């Protein structure tokens, strides 16, 4: 896409998002649209680590849950306004991510994923069993909408839902902005370098762990903020929200759409939330289907759907003007046979 074409497409999409409630005021359509918008921001925060430095944290829903529970608990038990509870949520997520990041990133890929899985499960267990605070499996109910005070009209229910839809659109804009700032230019280059070759990156002076921790902590804070907005929309927070099932959805979004690519993640978020609704897929079958699709994507199209559109930079192999063997790693010739001490 040229710069001009790209701008036109972005503008069209943006207008479509803004005017969507004009076409349909059905609460169901609004719900699906809001869900998509929420998942765009949520998945982008996940993709900071997963798509850019290859650190797949299975604890991402835990941070979303921290946000949701902070608002749930503070909102229902202390009557805190949303912005106060939201700030608490972000601070809590920051502290936990900061504490966990240092030891967790001492582990390599799979061990890191397993460690974060453990973290997610402990979080879920706490939410289930600390009944005095979290209400346990009974869930926290009746979280108030921040809009309830100043929404009237003939249909406050729809008005409230519409307000949330726009709230998540704004959240998307903010998260996209932060995501782009953190993944372009020099920082983006460092992240790509880490994903390509950690050994070489270190010998170029890149503090790999620092960047991994950074993406992890930034992702955790964003996820917590999104969770804090989602709780009053759903009006309920359950221990399930911290669970690994949500990690599956995030993995689906990122790998179907295109890891490490803002358009890919947006596309993935919309497809993964809308398609099951359109096809009315039985929830119990969703996971099985997701699993198969995820496997297929990783095998057939590891760059995700955006990989189909993306023009490959450079194209064909550059002709070898200088030296040597275009076929890569082998070291024939002067490599291993010593010319011998004469």
């Amino acid at each position, binding site marked *: 896409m040229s710069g001009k074409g790209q701008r036109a497409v972005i503008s069209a999409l943006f207008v479509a998002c803004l005017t969507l409630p004009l076409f349909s005021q059905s609460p169901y359509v609004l719900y699906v649209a809001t869900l998509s918008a929420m998942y765009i921001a949520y998945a982008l925060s996940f993709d900071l680590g997963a798509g850019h430095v290859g650190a797949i944290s299975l604890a991402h829903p835990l941070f979303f849950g921290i946000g949701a529970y902070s608002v749930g608990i503070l909102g229902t038990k202390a009557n805190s306004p949303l912005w106060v509870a939201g700030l608490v949520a972000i601070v809590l997520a920051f502290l936990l991510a900061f504490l966990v990041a240092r030891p967790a990133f001492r582990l390599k890929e799979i061990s890191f994923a397993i460690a974060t899985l453990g973290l997610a499960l402990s979080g879920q267990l706490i939410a289930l069993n600390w009944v005095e605070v979290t209400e346990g499996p009974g869930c926290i109910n009746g979280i108030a909408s921040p809009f309830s005070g100043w929404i009237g009209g003939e249909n406050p229910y729809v008005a409230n839902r519409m307000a949330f839809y726009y709230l998540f659109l704004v959240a998307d804009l903010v998260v996209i902005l932060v995501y782009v700032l953190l993944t372009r230019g020099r920082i983006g280059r460092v992240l790509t370098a880490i994903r390509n070759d950690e050994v070489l990156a270190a010998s170029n002076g890149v503090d790999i762990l620092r960047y991994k921790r950074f993406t992890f902590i930034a992702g955790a804070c964003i996820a917590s903020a999104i969770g804090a907005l989602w709780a009053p929309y759903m009006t309920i927070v359950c221990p399930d929200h911290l669970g690994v099932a949500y990690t599956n959805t995030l993995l689906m979004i990122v790998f179907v759409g295109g890891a490490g690519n803002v358009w890919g993640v947006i596309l993935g978020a919309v497809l993964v939330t809308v398609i099951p609704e359109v096809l009315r897929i039985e929830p119990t079958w969703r996971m099985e289907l997701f699993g198969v699709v995820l496997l297929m994507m990783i095998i057939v199209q590891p760059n995700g759907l955006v990989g189909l559109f993306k023009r490959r930079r450079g194209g064909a192999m*550059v002709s070898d003007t200088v030296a040597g063997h275009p076929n890569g790693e082998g070291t024939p010739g002067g490599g291993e046979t010593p010319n011998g001490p004469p």
Partner: protein
Amino acid sequence: MALLEVAQLVKRYFGVAAVDHVNMEVSRGQIVGLIGPNGSGKTTLFDCVTRHLSADGGQVSFNGSDISHALAHEVALLGCGRTFQTVRVFEDLSVRENLLLAAQQHQEDSIIKRAIRAPSIRVFDNAALEQCDEALVFVGLARLREERAGNLSYGQRKLLAFAGCLVFNPCLVLLDEPTAAVNPSMIKKMKEQIRELNGRGITFLIIEHNMDFIMDLADQIVVLDRGQKIAEGEPRAIQANEQVLEAYLGRQ
């Protein structure tokens, strides 16, 4: 004091000492060759010096600081560049971005300032771009600066990796088999380039199997065999050394 000092360095793999109590020094301004049969521990020694591997014993000090327990990127930031035996480049970055990455790591670094491109950062960016273009002209890749590094040929990748360890003005450069799979005219050019850089004050430690190349270039040669240093001295003396001939050619 020597620029690089390796004292009693040991690295074991399951009981086999790949590097066995090696002592060596590289003085400022020298070109030192590190030779030895395959499997004699040359690359392992490199990896222990640049801290891509943790040694099991001994000390390494570089430019006056003890780097025995440093992290790999800290060694690089102290001014030690290196290339790898199997050539490595960042395939998804362009040729110039490959160098920019290295150059910018050696500048002041705040993730937040970088993200919002604070004015102080822009000055750095321009300086880094200049350094990169200079390095690309030096190795002859200027024409390909916008090319994706993954599209380069093996020889071109080798040149890019060479430029990558020069771009941040290192004081010591470790080259792991720079002439492997490079054609003779290029080897000649590389020799001149190393001499020129050495003239500008960069110290070199070079692993090499091409004897004509390294004997001509080096001031000092260190010979490893089965993890141990068996000889050290000027090229002429090494070429006449019985023990070295035996290690390379077997008992006569």
